[in-house]
């Protein structure tokens, strides 16, 4: 993805704005569910299927959102590649495995699907220096779960046979500081939490109760398998929440289609 621009700007280094008084760190709100999701299918009429996903930002001060968009193009009669994603390394690979489990590839032999996900905006706010030091890439977890959800919606919109709609969900083990006990949160907003110990992103088929992909990262305090299980469980709850949104949007699309014809 290095070669994307032709007008490169000034030769000298430019820096994002640095504020004299740093903005107040965002306060983590206690939620027992995921952030609100806006999902819309069929936004690109020229593609076979497409979907757009946007996450609500619970913090009114930063009216942020994670916007993900997916274009999806199906090609019939090409190589026997089931699914080809062109995105940043690990994200593309994980997304591919997550979706591969859901698509019934046997029905369309010798055909390929191009799945293109464009991340319009991530959770990171570059205006606040405290969120710029997210070197560990916790944000990527959220991006991936959004990618999975939106890709699944677009595949369904394209009418490609799937066993189920895949949904992505994230849960993380966070602690405010070193003294307090760590808690598990669903759909963590990286900027809100002081310290993230571990996070887990799961791609899940809710009706079949199957996991197509799991990405776990971080360190769990002690060899505590219960925490690990809880983290997984919470991720699955997040997946189920996201899946409800997909189902609702697809139902609406079907209804709209019936209304016209």
């Amino acid at each position, binding site marked *: 993805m290095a070669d994307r621009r032709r007008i490169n700007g000034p030769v000298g280094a430019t820096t994002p704005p640095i504020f004299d008084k740093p903005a107040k760190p965002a306060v983590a709100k206690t939620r027992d569910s995921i952030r609100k999701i806006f999902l819309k299918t069929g936004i690109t009429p*020229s593609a076979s299927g497409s979907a757009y996903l946007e996450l609500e930002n619970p913090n009114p001060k930063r009216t942020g959102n994670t916007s993900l968009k997916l274009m999806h193009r199906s090609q019939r009669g090409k190589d026997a590649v089931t699914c080809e994603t062109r995105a940043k390394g690990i994200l593309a690979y994980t997304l591919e495995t997550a979706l591969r489990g859901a698509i019934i590839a046997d029905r369309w032999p010798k055909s390929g699907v191009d799945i293109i996900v464009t991340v319009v905006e991530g959770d990171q706010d570059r205006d606040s220096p405290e969120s710029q030091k997210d070197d560990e890439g916790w944000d990527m977890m959220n991006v991936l779960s959004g990618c999975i959800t939106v890709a699944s919606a677009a595949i369904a919109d394209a009418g490609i046979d799937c066993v189920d709609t895949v949904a992505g969900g994230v849960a993380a083990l966070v602690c405010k500081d070193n003294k307090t006990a760590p808690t598990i949160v669903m759909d963590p907003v990286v900027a809100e939490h002081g310290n993230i110990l571990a996070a887990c992103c799961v791609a899940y088929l809710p009706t079949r109760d199957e996991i197509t992909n799991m990405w776990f990262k971080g360190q769990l305090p002690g060899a505590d398998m219960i925490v690990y299980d809880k983290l997984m469980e919470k991720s699955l709850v997040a997946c189920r929440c996201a899946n409800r949104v997909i189902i609702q949007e697809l139902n609406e699309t079907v209804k709209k289609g019936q209304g016209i014809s």
Partner: protein
Amino acid sequence: MATSKSMTLSSTTFAKLSPHPYLLANLQPADPSTTPTRTNGRQPSQTRTPYINTSSLSHAHGSAVVRNGDTTVICGVRGETILTSAIPNYRAPSPSDDSSSSLDEARDYDLLVPNIELATGCAPNFLPGVPPTTLAQTLSTRVYSLLHSSKLVDVSRLRIYPEEAGKENKEEDDEKMDEAEEIDEYAVAEDKAVKAYWVLYIDVLFISFDGNPFDTAWTAILAALRDTKLPFAYWDADREMVLCKPVFTAKEKQKKGSGSYWILVDPDRLEEGLCDETVTVVVDKLGRSTKILGISKHGGTVVGPELTKKMVATAESRWEQIHAAIE
């Protein structure tokens, strides 16, 4: 002609098999009582209604989403700062030479960085994951030159001064700033050297592509720039860095036209360097009537439709001259 045959085909099949006759058949219906319509149901001169939504991105300083039919474009503007010491061949602008001088800060220091991306799967013919296509590059370049030649962004608003000057400016940097205040700002800035500049990164993403890309992209850039709010920035001498305070608006420049202009046909090198606006008309008079092969106009805001016609007339007489010379 093809309409009678196509009666047995469905219109969508006809459109796919031979798109060009299909369009022509729609534009010239066999039955003269029906009004000619385009294949998309529009009248020949009917446009799609644009739909514009601004401030849709939270982390950008300005953003806009423009939807024109099935063409959807998202544009984000981000400001970053660059120190004048990091600019090669930097020359301090004097406050007096605002628009007339040869120094064009925005162009010389590359303060505006527009890029258009088509590789988002917005249409089947643009493959993702490849370097920018010819169309994407052409669009970016056209937008780049238009941004500079139209002088849309007021460069003085991109300058960053040391703190003292900044303090005085701060009160004036309100959302609505009239001309008089703008002059005050120059007076304050006179003895203060510019320490840094804002660089505006303008990124345009095509979400969906259904024709007319330049128009939609430019609309998105206009809407996003109008929406852009940069933090108030000043140079902190102690920390030797640029710091920001809460927000002001970067306003589009309303350029004062002096009113008088001269048209110089066939300019020489000296004139060319001084002219704000150039019009090049290519005509062919060999046939019975004049054919216009190309009109390109760059920069400035003086030449309108009337003047363009005059230019064409000038080009016609010039053609005669050159034709005679060749013969």
